[in-house]
């Protein structure tokens, strides 16, 4: 199996990662994620508070998984922001996928602002245990 971690380290998923507040406001926020793997595939959980199903976009472009969402908060006209931790309305994060993943069968669901993406592995590439011979 290719070394997933090595791949991620060599190819950072967001080459233009927001490093300052100014760039965060322009290019959007990088949502925190959990990524884990079991025998059948990978699971990605992302915190996207304020994003409704209609404003969520999960897609695969070539070998890249792209998660994008727009925060929608109804504000009355007279409302002025007095304090803001969240200064952008756009979430975006990208992940490089590898060949043994079945991108056609990716499933995504959204509940209470948490996105769950399930990426199955191809049946033929599920891990095989390799016996070490001893003499």
């Amino acid at each position: 199996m290719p070394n997933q971690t090595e791949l991620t380290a060599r190819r950072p998923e967001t080459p233009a990662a927001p490093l300052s507040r100014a760039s965060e406001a322009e290019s959007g926020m990088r949502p925190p994620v959990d990524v884990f793997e079991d025998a059948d595939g990978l699971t990605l959980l992302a915190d996207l508070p304020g994003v409704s199903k209609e404003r969520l976009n999960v897609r695969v472009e070539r070998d890249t998984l792209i998660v994008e969402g727009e925060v929608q908060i109804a504000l009355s006209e007279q409302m002025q922001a007095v304090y803001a931790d969240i200064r952008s309305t756009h979430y975006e994060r990208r992940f490089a996928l590898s060949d043994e993943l079945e991108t056609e069968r990716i499933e995504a669901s959204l509940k209470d602002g948490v996105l769950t993406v399930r990426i199955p592995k191809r049946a033929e590439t599920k891990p095989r245990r390799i016996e070490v011979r001893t003499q």
Partner: protein
Amino acid sequence: MFSSLSGPAGSVFDQFRRLQEEMDELFGQWSAPTGIRSLPRGSFPAVNVGASPDKLEVYLFLPGVDSKRLDISIQQNLLIVSGERNLAPDEQANYYRQERFSGEFRRAITLPEDVATDGVDAQYRDGVLQISIPRREQARPRQIQVR
């Protein structure tokens, strides 16, 4: 071998971002007083506050919590929201990243002094808790007639 670069403790990018935040705190805002109950940037949950002449809207970005188990209280003009989000890790799985907050949280927000503590409304939608707090009558701008 590369796990230290992208493990749960933080990638190179995360470290960079943390450094940036520390720089912001050191240089960017050092002259402005920090709220005594404020939390460092990046704390969970994130908070936005909006104000209009007749009410305040407080938004807490709380994805994936049970809204029935949130504790919201207002004492005079101090709003306190506390609760917990416990993410139970899958024992059978191998984790590459665990960036999402897990555990107990508490946020105290000092509001303007003219808020009314009755008539407060809270609703939870798409992972955002929105608390609407009316302001007392006398604080609203009044049109003064010139005779």
